[in-house]
């Protein structure tokens, strides 16, 4: 039951790693498909800019790897940028993304006069039952840092939503892939519980 954490030079993986170690998960962090191939679950984290992230994924052949793993029914958890990259496209530098989940990442509109990035703790309202939220209270708070948010093409994929001037889907799940816009590894007990639910799934 090894968890593979995808390293594609998008941000710092130290906090994801310390959280997994704290939860005593069996994990490996790598940027090579051959290392990640035997893993029974995949965590796809990331912080940073969409187009350079996509470039690194392609260079390392991680784009096709993720697509294969998705089709092989391996549970995948996208975090933050990872949650945007699995969509079809991102408004950030008009990037074509992996296209695993129908939808796109869009920027918080200037017209809302919000502080962007959306940074800090915000609540997630659960919209449908999902294993990631087992044992978690509705409207639990998680730590967010992002300027773009997921706009799902098919709203039935939404699992939870968050209000920041507008209500957006902060959690979604499509077949074996789930994704969260916030950082569970930086969200205290609630975030650790969510990660634990992913680790213990099946």
């Amino acid at each position, binding site marked *: 039951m090894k968890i593979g954490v995808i390293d594609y030079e998008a941000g*710092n993986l*130290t906090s994801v790693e310390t959280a997994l170690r704290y939860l005593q998960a069996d994990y490996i962090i790598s940027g090579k498909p051959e290392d990640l191939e035997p893993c029974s679950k995949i965590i796809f984290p990331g912080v940073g800019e969409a187009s350079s992230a996509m470039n690194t994924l392609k260079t390392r052949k991680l784009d096709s790897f993720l697509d294969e793993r998705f089709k092989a029914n391996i549970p995948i958890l996208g975090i933050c940028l990872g949650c945007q990259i699995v969509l079809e496209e991102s408004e950030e530098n008009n990037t074509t993304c992996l296209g695993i989940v129908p939808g796109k990442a869009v920027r918080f509109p200037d017209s809302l006069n919000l502080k962007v990035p959306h*940074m*800090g703790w915000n609540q997630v309202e659960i919209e449908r039952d999902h294993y990631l939220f087992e044992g978690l209270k509705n409207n639990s708070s998680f730590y967010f840092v992002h300027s773009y948010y997921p706009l799902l093409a098919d709203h039935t994929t939404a699992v939870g939503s968050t209000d920041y001037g507008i209500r957006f889907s902060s959690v979604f799940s499509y077949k074996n892939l789930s994704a969260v816009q916030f950082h569970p590894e*930086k969200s205290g007990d609630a975030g650790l519980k969510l990660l634990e639910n992913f680790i213990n799934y099946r």
Partner: protein
Amino acid sequence: MLQKRVIVCLDVKDGRTTKGVKFKNNIDIGDPVLMAELYYKQGVDELVFYDITASSEKRGIMIDVVREVARKIFIPFSVGGGIGSLEDMKKVIMAGAEKVSVNSLAVKNPSIIAEGARYFGSQCIVVGMDVKKDSSKESGYGIVINGGRTPVDLDALQWALQVQELGAGEIVLNSIDADGTKNGYELNLTRMISGSVKIPVVASGGAGKPEHLVDVFREGMADAALIASMVHLDGFTVSEIKKLLDTEKIPVRL
């Protein structure tokens, strides 16, 4: 909706937490790692560590503290003090800090803000501003450096706008006039800066009782409030502060 953050600040010298008034007379108040764990359990939203170690040969101790804190608490924390280069930033971020904070050295070399933002993303770069009333400045406030001792020729509002332009992701706004007084935050200053920039502003300096946080969120328009001696020395807990904020209808994580 986005919640207001309560942030505890720990000044660390040679690996120990210290507390001084107006950057003077520092006393040892404990192990930063144990204190971080305690505040984490009390529900603090974020932590800030300022390395005030004077001698350069002892600076490595801070990295050990950062690494240890990262293993034990799972909320964001930033590290500041003596950060002057991309290399310094890399060290603390690789050790597990979420953000890095630059202050005096950013005033002397503003390009470090842009460099850091390009390398790590704006969300990692915090600019600490030490501000003092100065009637010769257009906004009525000027920037001081070196722990509040040295005034520089910078208007506080202009500097806030400039650091935002350079790519800072957040401002920690410290009022040197209010710091250590325990009479409350500088509300006018906080409101002016927070209302003028599009990045979050953390109010700092002057908190003496939980009601002061209510004021700075309600009247000062702060996105977050920094506290130190209130919880280090004066017996308040983060949980009771947040409970009061909740009672006062200020959105916080409980």
